[in-house]
């Protein structure tokens, strides 16, 4: 069923047990993002050490896709430096815009390839990107020093 390409088991797992979903104190940067179309929200704390992403934690409300995607993203990003994090992020954004034509590189995206199916459901792409865009925003704030 088409639906199963959207809701792969790994997504439902992340949805039921989201990783790093508890805001850690004293972040380098904190951002709050909203998806105005559906009301989903995410607050994200970023801890940096130089160019290294030491920790990403978050809280928020949203559908399985946005929750799972944010959870997967934190797992992927923690421990990376900014440059490689941005590479992963770009890879993921491209996957989301692929309208089902890409499968995603598991080497780079790990669990996030499970979200490939989202790209066939235009209305859900914003859900999948919510946490990632919040992360991008936090990193860019950390780089420009605010």
């Amino acid at each position, binding site marked *: 069923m*088409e*639906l199963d390409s*959207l*809701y792969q088991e790994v997504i439902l797992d992340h949805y039921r047990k989201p990783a790093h979903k508890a805001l850690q104190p004293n972040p380098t940067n904190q951002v709050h993002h909203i998806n105005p179309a*559906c*009301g*989903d929200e995410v607050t994200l704390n970023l801890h940096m050490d130089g160019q290294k992403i030491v920790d990403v934690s978050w809280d928020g*409300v949203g559908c*399985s896709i946005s929750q799972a995607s944010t959870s997967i993203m934190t797992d992927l990003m923690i421990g990376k430096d900014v440059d490689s994090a941005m590479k992963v992020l770009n890879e993921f954004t491209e996957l989301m815009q692929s309208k089902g034509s890409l499968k995603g590189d598991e080497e780079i995206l790990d669990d996030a390839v499970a979200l490939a199916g989202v790209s066939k459901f235009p209305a*859900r792409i914003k859900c999948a990107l919510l946490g990632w865009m919040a992360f991008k925003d936090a990193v860019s704030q950390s780089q420009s020093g605010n």
Partner: protein
Amino acid sequence: MFTSPLNGAEIRKDFPIFSKTMRGGGRLVYLDSGATSQKPNSVLDGERYFYENHNAAVHRGSHLLAEEANEAYEGARAIVAHFLGANLDEIIFTKSATEGLNLLAYSFGNSASTSRFALNPGDRIVLSEMEHHANLIPWQQLAKRCGAEIVWFPVDPDGRLDLSAMNDIISERTKIVALTHQSNVLGTINPLDQLISRTHEVGAVFVLDACQSAPHFAIDVKSLGPDFLVFSGHKALGPTGIGVLWGRAELLEEMEPFLTGGSMIESVTMTDATWASAPRKFEAGVPNMAGAVGLGIALQYLLNVGMNNVEAHEHALTQYALTKFADLERVRIIGPTDTKMRGSVLSFEIDGVHPHDAGQVLDQHGIAVRTGHHCAWPLMRKLGIVGTTRASFYIYNDEKDVDALIDGILATQKYFKV
């Protein structure tokens, strides 16, 4: 048991979209008429006929096509007037209910400080917690520009307006009361009589958002008693890009224009202009002529079906759905659970399933519902939820659509193992 004066399946034959095949391979179960309605062939034919036979700029030409275009456009206005029990010159075509509400807010804001419509610091605009953003933000913005205050009726846990403090909320300082006739989230129909008489008692004007009522049951503006009313054509079987603002003639006469430009003037110099009378004063520019014509045909379609039949049909569907929902487990209706003073908009929550996910599974079964905050974010906050899944019924639905919805909800629960 389901009995209704209308046969939804028969009516669907007039609506070409219902021959579409949906994602799951099945038929379209359209339960999103609260967002926008589908269009019968007669509306599509009528728009096309206008373009193929009479297309010209109204109010601006004297050649044959222009005369015919004018007749078609003004003929549509006559149908709208008849539909609402209003006078011809009280009907203003807008692009949407949203524009109609903004028109009022801007026109009031443009008034001289001595005008009855002028808002001065300390004056109040009364709204409610169940308003659609379209009947909320324009008033917020007006209040900010004029230093006026927004006050509002709270919504109680049953999804009804709490009117216990009505006389304090609508006070001598109130200039405008703007309320929805029927909530687009809860289905609640508001008790207008007392609200309108209190409004007039304090000398304020009453603005009715009839987006979710005018398409669904008979409205006679003269007996209902508001001062202004708006609705959108696209929710009433009409084309997109056309809406209606009705206002009492004597109020329209006093009001300042909103959009300015061609066809709304009496005389123009480089530095000044004077205005035509209503409705022209409020219809600047070449209007959505085909849209108006299509809306006229749509309302005529509804009148032919009979607004009382439309109401009875939706009532029967709602009754049937509420009974079925009562048997579901871990599914909660958001809004009144009986049909008293309630329309056919049905919001619900499925425990453990986010509305967006529920909508996705239903979509896979060909069932179109709306999910999210429904442009009523303050209401969501008040109810402590992020959103709902909403089914809304219209003339082309029938009890099989309700059955499909119920099955879809069960399938959703199964899919997400909740």
